[in-house]
Protein backbone atom coordinates (compact mmCIF):
# COMPACT_ATOMS: atom_id res chain seq x y z
CA UNK A 1 0.00 0.00 0.00
CA UNK A 2 1.16 3.50 -0.90
CA UNK A 3 0.28 6.35 1.45
CA UNK A 4 1.13 9.90 0.45
CA UNK A 5 0.53 12.51 3.16
CA UNK A 6 0.78 16.32 2.83
CA UNK A 7 3.39 16.01 0.12
CA UNK A 8 5.18 19.22 -0.92
CA UNK A 9 7.80 19.53 -3.65
CA UNK A 10 9.30 22.74 -5.00
CA UNK A 11 11.98 23.12 -7.62
CA UNK A 12 14.55 25.79 -7.06
CA UNK A 13 16.22 27.17 -10.13
CA UNK A 14 18.43 30.09 -9.22
CA UNK A 15 16.21 32.73 -7.60
CA UNK A 16 13.01 31.21 -8.93
CA UNK A 17 11.09 28.64 -6.93
CA UNK A 18 8.55 26.55 -8.86
CA UNK A 19 5.96 24.93 -6.64
CA UNK A 20 5.05 21.61 -8.23
CA UNK A 21 3.30 19.59 -5.55
CA UNK A 22 1.56 21.47 -2.81
CA UNK A 23 0.14 19.39 -0.01
CA UNK A 24 -0.98 16.29 -1.86
CA UNK A 25 -2.66 13.34 -0.12
CA UNK A 26 -3.17 10.03 -1.87
CA UNK A 27 -3.62 6.40 -0.90
CA UNK A 28 -3.23 3.53 -3.36
CA UNK A 29 -4.10 0.03 -2.24
CA UNK A 30 -2.46 -3.26 -3.19
CA UNK A 31 -3.15 -4.50 -6.70
CA UNK A 32 -4.69 -1.26 -7.93
CA UNK A 33 -4.35 -0.16 -11.53
CA UNK A 34 -4.18 3.64 -11.34
CA UNK A 35 -3.71 6.31 -13.98
CA UNK A 36 -2.29 9.70 -13.00
CA UNK A 37 -3.45 12.30 -15.48
CA UNK A 38 -3.36 16.05 -15.79
CA UNK A 39 -2.06 18.80 -18.04
CA UNK A 40 1.58 19.06 -18.90
CA UNK A 41 3.58 20.44 -15.99
CA UNK A 42 0.99 19.43 -13.45
CA UNK A 43 3.51 17.30 -11.58
CA UNK A 44 2.72 13.76 -12.74
CA UNK A 45 6.35 12.80 -13.27
CA UNK A 46 7.37 14.54 -10.08
CA UNK A 47 4.82 12.58 -8.08
CA UNK A 48 5.87 9.28 -9.63
CA UNK A 49 9.54 10.07 -8.95
CA UNK A 50 8.74 10.83 -5.32
CA UNK A 51 6.75 7.63 -4.88
CA UNK A 52 9.55 5.77 -6.66
CA UNK A 53 12.16 7.03 -4.17
CA UNK A 54 14.06 8.70 -6.99
CA UNK A 55 13.59 12.13 -5.46
CA UNK A 56 12.95 13.56 -2.02
CA UNK A 57 10.00 15.75 -1.04
CA UNK A 58 10.47 19.11 0.66
CA UNK A 59 7.93 18.05 3.26
CA UNK A 60 5.26 15.45 3.78
CA UNK A 61 5.64 11.71 3.92
CA UNK A 62 5.38 8.72 1.62
CA UNK A 63 4.94 5.28 3.12
CA UNK A 64 5.12 2.09 1.06
CA UNK A 65 4.07 -1.11 2.83
CA UNK A 66 5.05 0.39 6.17
CA UNK A 67 8.39 1.85 5.13
CA UNK A 68 8.66 5.63 5.25
CA UNK A 69 10.43 5.85 1.91
CA UNK A 70 10.53 9.65 1.81
CA UNK A 71 13.18 9.68 4.51
CA UNK A 72 15.39 6.90 3.15
CA UNK A 73 19.03 7.74 2.53
CA UNK A 74 20.29 7.47 -1.05
CA UNK A 75 21.79 4.01 -0.58
CA UNK A 76 18.71 2.72 1.24
CA UNK A 77 16.48 4.18 -1.45
CA UNK A 78 18.57 2.40 -4.08
CA UNK A 79 18.12 -1.00 -2.52
CA UNK A 80 14.47 -0.31 -1.74
CA UNK A 81 13.91 0.42 -5.42
CA UNK A 82 15.79 -2.71 -6.40
CA UNK A 83 13.80 -4.97 -4.12
CA UNK A 84 10.30 -3.52 -4.04
CA UNK A 85 9.70 -1.34 -7.10
CA UNK A 86 9.60 -1.74 -10.83
CA UNK A 87 9.96 1.07 -13.35
CA UNK A 88 8.79 1.58 -16.90
CA UNK A 89 9.82 4.67 -18.84
CA UNK A 90 8.48 6.64 -21.74
CA UNK A 91 11.40 5.82 -24.00
CA UNK A 92 11.89 2.21 -22.94
CA UNK A 93 15.53 2.72 -21.86
CA UNK A 94 16.67 -0.83 -22.36
CA UNK A 95 20.39 -1.53 -22.21
CA UNK A 96 21.24 -1.33 -25.88
CA UNK A 97 24.17 -3.71 -25.72
CA UNK A 98 22.18 -6.44 -24.00
CA UNK A 99 19.79 -8.88 -25.60
CA UNK A 100 16.15 -9.14 -24.58
CA UNK A 101 17.04 -12.01 -22.30
CA UNK A 102 19.96 -10.16 -20.72
CA UNK A 103 17.90 -7.02 -20.22
CA UNK A 104 15.24 -8.93 -18.34
CA UNK A 105 17.80 -10.91 -16.38
CA UNK A 106 19.71 -7.75 -15.40
CA UNK A 107 17.70 -6.75 -12.27
CA UNK A 108 17.88 -10.30 -10.94
CA UNK A 109 21.49 -11.16 -11.63
CA UNK A 110 23.27 -7.81 -11.41
CA UNK A 111 21.17 -5.88 -8.95
CA UNK A 112 19.89 -8.60 -6.63
CA UNK A 113 22.83 -10.92 -7.29
CA UNK A 114 20.69 -14.01 -7.78
CA UNK A 115 22.25 -17.11 -9.31
CA UNK A 116 19.54 -19.27 -10.83
CA UNK A 117 17.61 -16.77 -12.86
CA UNK A 118 16.85 -18.71 -16.01
CA UNK A 119 13.48 -20.11 -14.96
CA UNK A 120 12.16 -16.81 -13.72
CA UNK A 121 13.36 -14.84 -16.77
CA UNK A 122 11.77 -17.38 -19.11
CA UNK A 123 8.54 -17.34 -17.13
CA UNK A 124 8.25 -13.57 -17.38
CA UNK A 125 9.24 -13.51 -21.06
CA UNK A 126 6.62 -16.13 -21.73
CA UNK A 127 4.04 -14.08 -19.86
CA UNK A 128 4.71 -11.05 -22.07
CA UNK A 129 4.80 -13.23 -25.18
CA UNK A 130 8.41 -12.52 -26.17
CA UNK A 131 9.95 -15.94 -25.61
CA UNK A 132 10.76 -16.21 -29.31
CA UNK A 133 12.76 -12.97 -29.35
CA UNK A 134 15.10 -13.50 -26.43
CA UNK A 135 18.32 -13.22 -28.40
CA UNK A 136 17.41 -10.01 -30.19
CA UNK A 137 18.98 -6.68 -29.31
CA UNK A 138 16.76 -3.68 -28.54
CA UNK A 139 17.52 -2.01 -31.86
CA UNK A 140 16.02 -5.05 -33.60
CA UNK A 141 12.65 -4.55 -31.86
CA UNK A 142 9.68 -2.28 -32.47
CA UNK A 143 8.74 0.33 -29.89
CA UNK A 144 5.87 -1.78 -28.64
CA UNK A 145 8.11 -4.83 -28.29
CA UNK A 146 10.71 -2.79 -26.44
CA UNK A 147 8.11 -1.55 -24.00
CA UNK A 148 6.95 -5.11 -23.41
CA UNK A 149 10.51 -6.07 -22.60
CA UNK A 150 10.62 -3.10 -20.24
CA UNK A 151 7.46 -4.44 -18.57
CA UNK A 152 9.16 -7.82 -18.23
CA UNK A 153 12.27 -6.19 -16.76
CA UNK A 154 10.07 -4.40 -14.20
CA UNK A 155 8.16 -7.60 -13.37
CA UNK A 156 11.05 -9.99 -13.10
CA UNK A 157 11.95 -9.16 -9.49
CA UNK A 158 8.31 -9.61 -8.56
CA UNK A 159 7.94 -6.08 -7.13
CA UNK A 160 4.95 -4.95 -5.09
CA UNK A 161 4.55 -1.82 -7.20
CA UNK A 162 5.36 -0.86 -10.77
CA UNK A 163 5.59 2.83 -11.63
CA UNK A 164 5.29 3.83 -15.27
CA UNK A 165 5.76 7.42 -16.41
CA UNK A 166 3.97 7.84 -19.75
CA UNK A 167 4.64 4.26 -20.83
CA UNK A 168 2.68 4.66 -24.05
CA UNK A 169 3.64 8.19 -25.11
CA UNK A 170 6.14 6.96 -27.71
CA UNK A 171 3.91 4.28 -29.13
CA UNK A 172 1.25 4.23 -31.83
CA UNK A 173 -2.27 3.64 -30.57
CA UNK A 174 -2.31 -0.07 -31.40
CA UNK A 175 0.98 -0.80 -29.62
CA UNK A 176 -0.06 1.50 -26.77
CA UNK A 177 -3.23 -0.48 -26.25
CA UNK A 178 -1.27 -3.74 -26.34
CA UNK A 179 1.18 -2.51 -23.71
CA UNK A 180 -1.61 -1.31 -21.43
CA UNK A 181 -3.44 -4.62 -21.89
CA UNK A 182 -0.26 -6.45 -21.03
CA UNK A 183 0.15 -4.35 -17.90
CA UNK A 184 -3.40 -5.14 -16.94
CA UNK A 185 -2.89 -8.86 -17.47
CA UNK A 186 0.24 -8.77 -15.39
CA UNK A 187 -1.55 -6.88 -12.68
CA UNK A 188 -4.14 -9.63 -12.60
CA UNK A 189 -1.64 -12.44 -12.87
CA UNK A 190 0.85 -11.24 -10.24
CA UNK A 191 -1.40 -8.86 -8.26
CA UNK A 192 1.17 -6.11 -8.74
CA UNK A 193 0.14 -2.51 -8.16
CA UNK A 194 0.48 -0.42 -11.32
CA UNK A 195 0.64 3.36 -11.19
CA UNK A 196 1.11 5.05 -14.53
CA UNK A 197 0.84 8.55 -15.88
CA UNK A 198 -0.61 9.42 -19.26
CA UNK A 199 -1.87 12.19 -21.48
CA UNK A 200 -3.81 9.87 -23.64
CA UNK A 201 -7.54 9.86 -22.90
CA UNK A 202 -8.01 6.46 -24.57
CA UNK A 203 -5.31 4.95 -22.44
CA UNK A 204 -6.52 6.51 -19.20
CA UNK A 205 -9.92 4.92 -19.63
CA UNK A 206 -8.19 1.55 -19.43
CA UNK A 207 -7.36 2.29 -15.80
CA UNK A 208 -9.63 1.24 -12.97
CA UNK A 209 -8.93 4.46 -11.10
CA UNK A 210 -8.05 7.86 -12.54
CA UNK A 211 -6.32 10.51 -10.41
CA UNK A 212 -6.25 13.96 -12.01
CA UNK A 213 -3.63 16.46 -10.94
CA UNK A 214 -3.84 20.19 -11.34
CA UNK A 215 -1.55 22.84 -9.88
CA UNK A 216 0.07 20.39 -7.56
CA UNK A 217 -3.11 19.08 -6.02
CA UNK A 218 -5.53 16.29 -6.77
CA UNK A 219 -8.40 17.79 -8.66
CA UNK A 220 -10.28 14.59 -9.26
CA UNK A 221 -9.99 10.99 -8.08
CA UNK A 222 -12.54 8.51 -9.36
CA UNK A 223 -12.85 4.86 -10.09
CA UNK A 224 -13.52 3.83 -13.63
CA UNK A 225 -15.80 1.00 -14.66
Amino acid at each position, binding site marked *: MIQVVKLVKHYQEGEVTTPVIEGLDLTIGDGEFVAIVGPSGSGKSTLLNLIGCLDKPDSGEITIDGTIVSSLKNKEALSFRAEHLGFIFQDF*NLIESFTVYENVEFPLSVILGEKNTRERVKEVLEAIGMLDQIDKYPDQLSGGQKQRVAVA*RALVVNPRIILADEPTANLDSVSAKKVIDLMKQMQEKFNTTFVFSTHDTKIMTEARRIVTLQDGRIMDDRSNG
Partner: protein
Amino acid sequence: MKSLKIAYRTLKRNRRRMILTTALIAIGVMFVLLFAAFSGSFKHYMIGQITDSMLGHLQIHRQGYVASLDNMPLDKNIPEHKLRTIERELDAMEGIVSYSLRLKHSALISNFDTSTNLRLNGIDPAIEHSTLPQLRSRIIGNADFAHGEVLIPDIVAKGMNLKIGDSVVLVVTNNIGSMNARTFKVAGILQSISGPGGRDGYIHIDDSRSLLRLHQNEANEIAIRLHDLSALPQIRQKLTHLLLASNKPPLEIHGWEELSPFSSIAKMIDLMSISIQIILISIVLISILNVMIMSVYERIKEIGTMSAIGTPSSFILSTFLFEGMLLGIFGLVVGTALSYGVVYGIGDMTIRFGRQDDILLSPVLACTQVAFIGVLVIVVSALASLYPALKAARMNPVDALRS
Protein backbone atom coordinates in the same frame (compact mmCIF):
# COMPACT_ATOMS: atom_id res chain seq x y z
CA MET B 1 31.64 -9.39 -15.09
CA LYS B 2 28.35 -8.22 -16.59
CA SER B 3 29.84 -4.72 -16.62
CA LEU B 4 32.75 -5.95 -18.73
CA LYS B 5 30.22 -7.51 -21.09
CA ILE B 6 28.35 -4.23 -21.45
CA ALA B 7 31.62 -2.38 -21.96
CA TYR B 8 32.79 -4.76 -24.66
CA ARG B 9 29.45 -4.87 -26.47
CA THR B 10 29.15 -1.09 -26.37
CA LEU B 11 32.52 -0.81 -28.06
CA LYS B 12 31.48 -3.34 -30.66
CA ARG B 13 28.32 -1.36 -31.35
CA ASN B 14 30.36 1.80 -31.95
CA ARG B 15 32.77 0.06 -34.27
CA ARG B 16 34.11 3.08 -36.11
CA ARG B 17 34.80 4.98 -32.93
CA MET B 18 36.55 1.98 -31.45
CA ILE B 19 38.71 1.43 -34.54
CA LEU B 20 39.74 5.08 -34.68
CA THR B 21 40.68 5.26 -31.02
CA THR B 22 42.42 1.91 -31.10
CA ALA B 23 44.39 2.98 -34.18
CA LEU B 24 45.41 6.26 -32.56
CA ILE B 25 46.63 4.55 -29.41
CA ALA B 26 48.29 1.80 -31.44
CA ILE B 27 50.24 4.38 -33.44
CA GLY B 28 51.34 6.06 -30.23
CA VAL B 29 52.43 2.74 -28.73
CA MET B 30 54.30 1.88 -31.93
CA PHE B 31 56.12 5.19 -31.89
CA VAL B 32 57.30 4.65 -28.36
CA LEU B 33 58.28 1.02 -28.81
CA LEU B 34 59.97 1.44 -32.17
CA PHE B 35 61.86 4.50 -31.03
CA ALA B 36 62.99 2.60 -27.97
CA ALA B 37 63.98 -0.42 -30.05
CA PHE B 38 65.97 1.53 -32.63
CA SER B 39 67.49 4.17 -30.40
CA GLY B 40 68.24 1.47 -27.85
CA SER B 41 70.15 -0.63 -30.35
CA PHE B 42 71.92 2.46 -31.68
CA LYS B 43 72.93 3.42 -28.17
CA HIS B 44 73.93 -0.12 -27.39
CA TYR B 45 76.07 -0.30 -30.52
CA MET B 46 77.71 3.07 -29.95
CA ILE B 47 78.37 2.51 -26.28
CA GLY B 48 79.64 -0.97 -27.06
CA GLN B 49 82.02 0.40 -29.63
CA ILE B 50 83.20 3.21 -27.41
CA THR B 51 83.76 1.07 -24.36
CA ASP B 52 84.87 -2.12 -26.13
CA SER B 53 87.17 -0.73 -28.77
CA MET B 54 88.42 2.56 -27.40
CA LEU B 55 87.91 3.71 -23.84
CA GLY B 56 87.18 0.71 -21.71
CA HIS B 57 84.63 1.17 -18.95
CA LEU B 58 86.72 3.08 -16.45
CA GLN B 59 90.00 4.95 -16.69
CA ILE B 60 92.54 5.96 -14.06
CA HIS B 61 94.86 8.90 -14.57
CA ARG B 62 97.01 11.17 -12.54
CA GLN B 63 94.96 14.10 -11.41
CA GLY B 64 94.50 16.76 -14.06
CA TYR B 65 95.44 14.49 -16.95
CA VAL B 66 92.01 14.32 -18.58
CA ALA B 67 91.57 18.09 -18.41
CA SER B 68 94.78 18.60 -20.37
CA LEU B 69 94.40 15.54 -22.62
CA ASP B 70 94.45 17.69 -25.76
CA ASN B 71 98.09 18.53 -25.14
CA MET B 72 99.04 14.94 -24.46
CA PRO B 73 101.03 16.01 -21.40
CA LEU B 74 104.01 13.92 -20.42
CA ASP B 75 104.49 15.41 -16.99
CA LYS B 76 101.42 13.67 -15.65
CA ASN B 77 102.57 10.09 -15.86
CA ILE B 78 101.85 7.68 -13.06
CA PRO B 79 105.17 6.57 -11.62
CA GLU B 80 106.08 2.90 -11.54
CA HIS B 81 105.71 2.38 -7.79
CA LYS B 82 102.23 3.83 -7.94
CA LEU B 83 101.36 1.65 -10.91
CA ARG B 84 102.34 -1.40 -8.89
CA THR B 85 99.98 -0.42 -6.06
CA ILE B 86 97.16 0.18 -8.50
CA GLU B 87 97.81 -3.15 -10.19
CA ARG B 88 97.70 -4.89 -6.83
CA GLU B 89 94.37 -3.32 -6.01
CA LEU B 90 92.91 -4.08 -9.43
CA ASP B 91 94.10 -7.67 -9.36
CA ALA B 92 92.45 -8.19 -6.01
CA MET B 93 89.20 -6.52 -6.96
CA GLU B 94 86.18 -8.47 -8.10
CA GLY B 95 84.21 -7.58 -11.22
CA ILE B 96 87.21 -6.56 -13.29
CA VAL B 97 87.94 -8.52 -16.47
CA SER B 98 91.16 -6.86 -17.44
CA TYR B 99 93.01 -3.57 -17.42
CA SER B 100 95.54 -2.10 -19.78
CA LEU B 101 98.36 0.33 -19.05
CA ARG B 102 98.78 2.98 -21.70
CA LEU B 103 101.36 5.57 -22.43
CA LYS B 104 99.78 8.22 -24.59
CA HIS B 105 101.96 10.70 -26.41
CA SER B 106 102.08 12.55 -29.69
CA ALA B 107 104.52 11.86 -32.48
CA LEU B 108 105.48 13.13 -35.88
CA ILE B 109 105.00 10.43 -38.49
CA SER B 110 106.91 10.66 -41.74
CA ASN B 111 107.09 8.46 -44.82
CA PHE B 112 110.24 10.30 -46.02
CA ASP B 113 107.99 12.33 -48.28
CA THR B 114 105.35 14.01 -46.11
CA SER B 115 104.82 14.08 -42.41
CA THR B 116 101.98 14.75 -40.01
CA ASN B 117 101.17 14.75 -36.34
CA LEU B 118 99.82 11.63 -34.77
CA ARG B 119 98.60 10.67 -31.34
CA LEU B 120 99.90 7.37 -30.18
CA ASN B 121 98.95 4.89 -27.50
CA GLY B 122 101.81 2.82 -26.22
CA ILE B 123 100.20 -0.46 -25.19
CA ASP B 124 100.76 -4.16 -24.78
CA PRO B 125 98.63 -5.58 -27.64
CA ALA B 126 97.59 -8.78 -25.86
CA ILE B 127 96.46 -6.93 -22.76
CA GLU B 128 94.82 -4.15 -24.75
CA HIS B 129 92.82 -6.72 -26.72
CA SER B 130 91.57 -8.42 -23.61
CA THR B 131 90.55 -5.02 -22.24
CA LEU B 132 88.99 -3.89 -25.53
CA PRO B 133 87.49 -7.04 -27.09
CA GLN B 134 86.19 -5.15 -30.13
CA LEU B 135 89.42 -3.37 -30.97
CA ARG B 136 90.38 -6.19 -33.35
CA SER B 137 87.33 -5.53 -35.48
CA ARG B 138 88.61 -2.01 -36.17
CA ILE B 139 91.98 -3.23 -37.35
CA ILE B 140 92.88 -4.23 -40.87
CA GLY B 141 96.20 -6.05 -40.82
CA ASN B 142 98.01 -7.52 -37.89
CA ALA B 143 96.20 -6.71 -34.67
CA ASP B 144 98.81 -8.55 -32.62
CA PHE B 145 101.67 -6.35 -33.75
CA ALA B 146 105.17 -6.70 -32.41
CA HIS B 147 107.87 -4.33 -31.22
CA GLY B 148 108.90 -1.96 -33.96
CA GLU B 149 105.48 -2.03 -35.57
CA VAL B 150 102.77 0.61 -35.60
CA LEU B 151 99.00 0.69 -36.18
CA ILE B 152 98.03 3.91 -37.92
CA PRO B 153 94.54 5.42 -38.17
CA ASP B 154 92.89 5.21 -41.57
CA ILE B 155 92.80 8.97 -42.13
CA VAL B 156 96.58 9.20 -41.71
CA ALA B 157 97.03 6.17 -43.96
CA LYS B 158 94.87 7.78 -46.60
CA GLY B 159 96.46 11.22 -46.26
CA MET B 160 99.98 9.90 -46.50
CA ASN B 161 99.16 7.10 -48.88
CA LEU B 162 100.52 4.45 -46.52
CA LYS B 163 99.97 0.74 -46.87
CA ILE B 164 100.51 -2.22 -44.60
CA GLY B 165 104.18 -3.16 -44.67
CA ASP B 166 105.39 0.38 -45.44
CA SER B 167 108.14 1.90 -43.34
CA VAL B 168 107.57 5.11 -41.44
CA VAL B 169 109.64 7.21 -39.06
CA LEU B 170 108.10 8.21 -35.73
CA VAL B 171 109.66 11.30 -34.17
CA VAL B 172 108.89 11.85 -30.51
CA THR B 173 109.76 14.75 -28.22
CA ASN B 174 109.86 13.94 -24.55
CA ASN B 175 108.92 16.20 -21.68
CA ILE B 176 112.34 17.76 -21.37
CA GLY B 177 112.42 18.58 -25.06
CA SER B 178 114.78 15.97 -26.33
CA MET B 179 113.82 14.38 -29.62
CA ASN B 180 114.06 10.77 -30.59
CA ALA B 181 113.21 8.96 -33.82
CA ARG B 182 112.92 5.41 -35.02
CA THR B 183 111.73 3.54 -38.06
CA PHE B 184 108.56 1.49 -37.67
CA LYS B 185 106.74 -0.89 -39.94
CA VAL B 186 103.00 -0.30 -40.56
CA ALA B 187 101.43 -3.47 -39.18
CA GLY B 188 97.84 -2.46 -39.64
CA ILE B 189 95.34 0.29 -40.27
CA LEU B 190 92.76 1.34 -37.70
CA GLN B 191 89.27 2.32 -38.63
CA SER B 192 88.39 5.66 -37.02
CA ILE B 193 85.46 6.05 -34.70
CA SER B 194 84.05 9.20 -33.19
CA GLY B 195 85.18 10.39 -29.80
CA PRO B 196 88.48 11.11 -28.13
CA GLY B 197 91.07 8.49 -29.01
CA GLY B 198 89.02 7.38 -31.98
CA ARG B 199 91.80 8.47 -34.32
CA ASP B 200 94.85 7.40 -32.33
CA GLY B 201 97.60 5.11 -33.52
CA TYR B 202 99.09 2.25 -31.51
CA ILE B 203 102.65 1.10 -30.82
CA HIS B 204 104.06 -1.25 -28.24
CA ILE B 205 104.37 0.39 -24.81
CA ASP B 206 108.04 -0.66 -24.65
CA ASP B 207 108.67 1.28 -27.86
CA SER B 208 106.89 4.31 -26.39
CA ARG B 209 109.01 4.16 -23.28
CA SER B 210 112.24 3.91 -25.22
CA LEU B 211 111.23 6.69 -27.63
CA LEU B 212 110.40 8.90 -24.67
CA ARG B 213 113.60 7.77 -22.95
CA LEU B 214 111.74 6.78 -19.80
CA HIS B 215 113.87 4.86 -17.35
CA GLN B 216 110.93 3.62 -15.38
CA ASN B 217 107.88 1.65 -16.50
CA GLU B 218 105.55 4.62 -16.36
CA ALA B 219 102.09 4.95 -17.88
CA ASN B 220 99.63 7.80 -18.01
CA GLU B 221 96.37 5.92 -18.48
CA ILE B 222 94.86 2.72 -17.17
CA ALA B 223 91.80 1.47 -19.06
CA ILE B 224 89.64 -1.00 -17.15
CA ARG B 225 87.06 -3.48 -18.43
CA LEU B 226 84.34 -4.68 -16.09
CA HIS B 227 82.37 -7.91 -16.18
CA ASP B 228 79.14 -6.02 -15.95
CA LEU B 229 78.67 -2.44 -17.09
CA SER B 230 75.83 -1.95 -14.65
CA ALA B 231 78.27 -2.49 -11.77
CA LEU B 232 80.25 0.55 -12.86
CA PRO B 233 79.05 2.95 -10.15
CA GLN B 234 79.82 0.56 -7.30
CA ILE B 235 83.23 -0.47 -8.64
CA ARG B 236 84.09 3.11 -9.37
CA GLN B 237 83.22 4.08 -5.83
CA LYS B 238 85.27 1.23 -4.41
CA LEU B 239 88.23 2.18 -6.58
CA THR B 240 87.94 5.81 -5.64
CA HIS B 241 87.97 4.81 -2.03
CA LEU B 242 91.02 2.56 -2.40
CA LEU B 243 93.12 4.61 -4.76
CA LEU B 244 92.46 8.12 -3.78
CA ALA B 245 93.21 7.40 -0.15
CA SER B 246 96.95 7.62 -0.66
CA ASN B 247 97.68 10.64 -2.74
CA LYS B 248 101.24 10.44 -3.82
CA PRO B 249 100.58 11.48 -6.55
CA PRO B 250 96.81 12.13 -6.51
CA LEU B 251 94.81 10.13 -9.07
CA GLU B 252 91.51 10.60 -10.84
CA ILE B 253 88.97 8.02 -11.99
CA HIS B 254 86.52 8.54 -14.82
CA GLY B 255 83.70 6.44 -16.21
CA TRP B 256 83.31 6.18 -19.97
CA GLU B 257 80.40 8.65 -19.95
CA GLU B 258 82.64 11.43 -18.72
CA LEU B 259 85.24 10.68 -21.33
CA SER B 260 83.05 10.37 -24.41
CA PRO B 261 80.83 13.09 -25.91
CA PHE B 262 78.50 10.31 -26.99
CA SER B 263 77.16 10.10 -23.47
CA SER B 264 75.40 13.42 -24.02
CA ILE B 265 73.90 12.05 -27.24
CA ALA B 266 72.80 9.02 -25.25
CA LYS B 267 71.22 11.33 -22.68
CA MET B 268 69.47 13.23 -25.45
CA ILE B 269 68.11 9.96 -26.83
CA ASP B 270 66.78 9.11 -23.38
CA LEU B 271 65.19 12.54 -23.14
CA MET B 272 63.54 12.11 -26.52
CA SER B 273 62.31 8.74 -25.44
CA ILE B 274 60.69 10.31 -22.39
CA SER B 275 59.15 13.06 -24.54
CA ILE B 276 57.65 10.49 -26.87
CA GLN B 277 56.26 8.65 -23.87
CA ILE B 278 54.67 11.87 -22.64
CA ILE B 279 53.13 12.35 -26.07
CA LEU B 280 51.81 8.80 -25.88
CA ILE B 281 50.31 9.51 -22.47
CA SER B 282 48.59 12.59 -23.87
CA ILE B 283 47.27 10.69 -26.88
CA VAL B 284 45.84 7.94 -24.69
CA LEU B 285 44.50 10.40 -22.14
CA ILE B 286 42.84 12.75 -24.60
CA SER B 287 41.44 10.15 -26.98
CA ILE B 288 39.98 7.96 -24.26
CA LEU B 289 38.68 10.89 -22.25
CA ASN B 290 37.01 12.22 -25.37
CA VAL B 291 35.44 8.92 -26.36
CA MET B 292 34.29 8.17 -22.84
CA ILE B 293 32.71 11.59 -22.31
CA MET B 294 30.87 11.00 -25.55
CA SER B 295 29.87 7.52 -24.46
CA VAL B 296 28.50 8.74 -21.12
CA TYR B 297 26.65 11.59 -22.80
CA GLU B 298 25.03 9.27 -25.33
CA ARG B 299 23.89 6.85 -22.68
CA ILE B 300 22.56 9.25 -20.06
CA LYS B 301 19.12 7.64 -20.22
CA GLU B 302 20.57 4.15 -19.94
CA ILE B 303 22.57 5.28 -16.91
CA GLY B 304 19.52 6.97 -15.39
CA THR B 305 17.50 3.81 -15.92
CA MET B 306 20.10 1.55 -14.40
CA SER B 307 20.33 3.78 -11.38
CA ALA B 308 16.52 4.11 -11.12
CA ILE B 309 15.99 0.36 -11.07
CA GLY B 310 18.53 0.04 -8.30
CA THR B 311 21.86 -0.71 -9.99
CA PRO B 312 24.73 -0.01 -7.57
CA SER B 313 26.87 2.92 -8.69
CA SER B 314 29.94 0.72 -8.49
CA PHE B 315 28.51 -1.35 -11.34
CA ILE B 316 27.95 1.75 -13.47
CA LEU B 317 31.42 3.00 -12.60
CA SER B 318 33.06 -0.27 -13.60
CA THR B 319 31.10 -0.43 -16.85
CA PHE B 320 32.60 2.83 -18.03
CA LEU B 321 36.03 2.14 -16.56
CA PHE B 322 36.15 -1.16 -18.40
CA GLU B 323 35.03 0.48 -21.62
CA GLY B 324 37.88 3.00 -21.51
CA MET B 325 40.43 0.45 -20.37
CA LEU B 326 39.42 -1.97 -23.10
CA LEU B 327 40.06 0.75 -25.67
CA GLY B 328 43.50 1.29 -24.17
CA ILE B 329 44.21 -2.44 -24.09
CA PHE B 330 43.10 -2.92 -27.71
CA GLY B 331 45.37 -0.07 -28.81
CA LEU B 332 48.18 -1.48 -26.72
CA VAL B 333 47.84 -5.00 -28.11
CA VAL B 334 47.61 -3.83 -31.72
CA GLY B 335 50.48 -1.36 -31.31
CA THR B 336 52.71 -3.89 -29.59
CA ALA B 337 51.97 -6.58 -32.17
CA LEU B 338 52.72 -4.20 -35.04
CA SER B 339 55.92 -3.08 -33.32
CA TYR B 340 57.11 -6.67 -33.03
CA GLY B 341 56.16 -7.13 -36.67
CA VAL B 342 58.19 -4.11 -37.75
CA VAL B 343 61.19 -5.05 -35.61
CA TYR B 344 61.28 -8.61 -36.92
CA GLY B 345 60.41 -7.51 -40.43
CA ILE B 346 63.31 -5.07 -40.63
CA GLY B 347 65.78 -7.24 -38.73
CA ASP B 348 69.33 -5.92 -38.81
CA MET B 349 70.14 -2.75 -40.66
CA THR B 350 73.13 -0.50 -41.08
CA ILE B 351 72.96 3.27 -40.79
CA ARG B 352 75.33 6.23 -41.00
CA PHE B 353 76.10 8.38 -38.03
CA GLY B 354 78.65 11.15 -38.36
CA ARG B 355 81.78 9.75 -39.94
CA GLN B 356 80.65 6.19 -39.44
CA ASP B 357 78.65 4.65 -42.24
CA ASP B 358 78.36 1.07 -41.12
CA ILE B 359 76.63 1.15 -37.79
CA LEU B 360 74.84 -2.15 -37.43
CA LEU B 361 71.50 -1.84 -35.70
CA SER B 362 69.77 -4.94 -34.44
CA PRO B 363 66.69 -3.45 -32.81
CA VAL B 364 65.04 -5.51 -30.09
CA LEU B 365 61.96 -4.84 -28.01
CA ALA B 366 63.05 -5.26 -24.43
CA CYS B 367 60.46 -7.14 -22.37
CA THR B 368 60.77 -4.61 -19.56
CA GLN B 369 60.11 -1.76 -21.98
CA VAL B 370 57.05 -3.50 -23.44
CA ALA B 371 55.79 -4.29 -19.94
CA PHE B 372 56.37 -0.72 -18.81
CA ILE B 373 54.49 0.73 -21.78
CA GLY B 374 51.73 -1.82 -21.19
CA VAL B 375 51.28 -0.80 -17.59
CA LEU B 376 51.53 2.88 -18.55
CA VAL B 377 48.83 2.65 -21.23
CA ILE B 378 46.47 0.66 -19.01
CA VAL B 379 46.93 2.99 -16.04
CA VAL B 380 46.47 6.09 -18.20
CA SER B 381 43.37 4.57 -19.85
CA ALA B 382 41.93 3.88 -16.42
CA LEU B 383 42.70 7.42 -15.29
CA ALA B 384 41.20 8.90 -18.45
CA SER B 385 38.00 6.89 -18.02
CA LEU B 386 37.77 7.62 -14.33
CA TYR B 387 36.29 11.09 -14.70
CA PRO B 388 33.54 10.13 -17.17
CA ALA B 389 32.88 6.94 -15.22
CA LEU B 390 32.51 8.83 -11.95
CA LYS B 391 30.24 11.29 -13.67
CA ALA B 392 28.06 8.40 -14.82
CA ALA B 393 28.10 6.66 -11.45
CA ARG B 394 27.12 9.81 -9.57
CA MET B 395 24.41 10.84 -11.97
CA ASN B 396 21.10 11.63 -10.36
CA PRO B 397 18.53 9.32 -11.99
CA VAL B 398 15.81 11.99 -12.10
CA ASP B 399 18.05 14.45 -13.95
CA ALA B 400 19.38 11.72 -16.22
CA LEU B 401 15.90 10.56 -17.16
CA ARG B 402 14.60 14.09 -17.70
CA SER B 403 17.36 14.98 -20.19
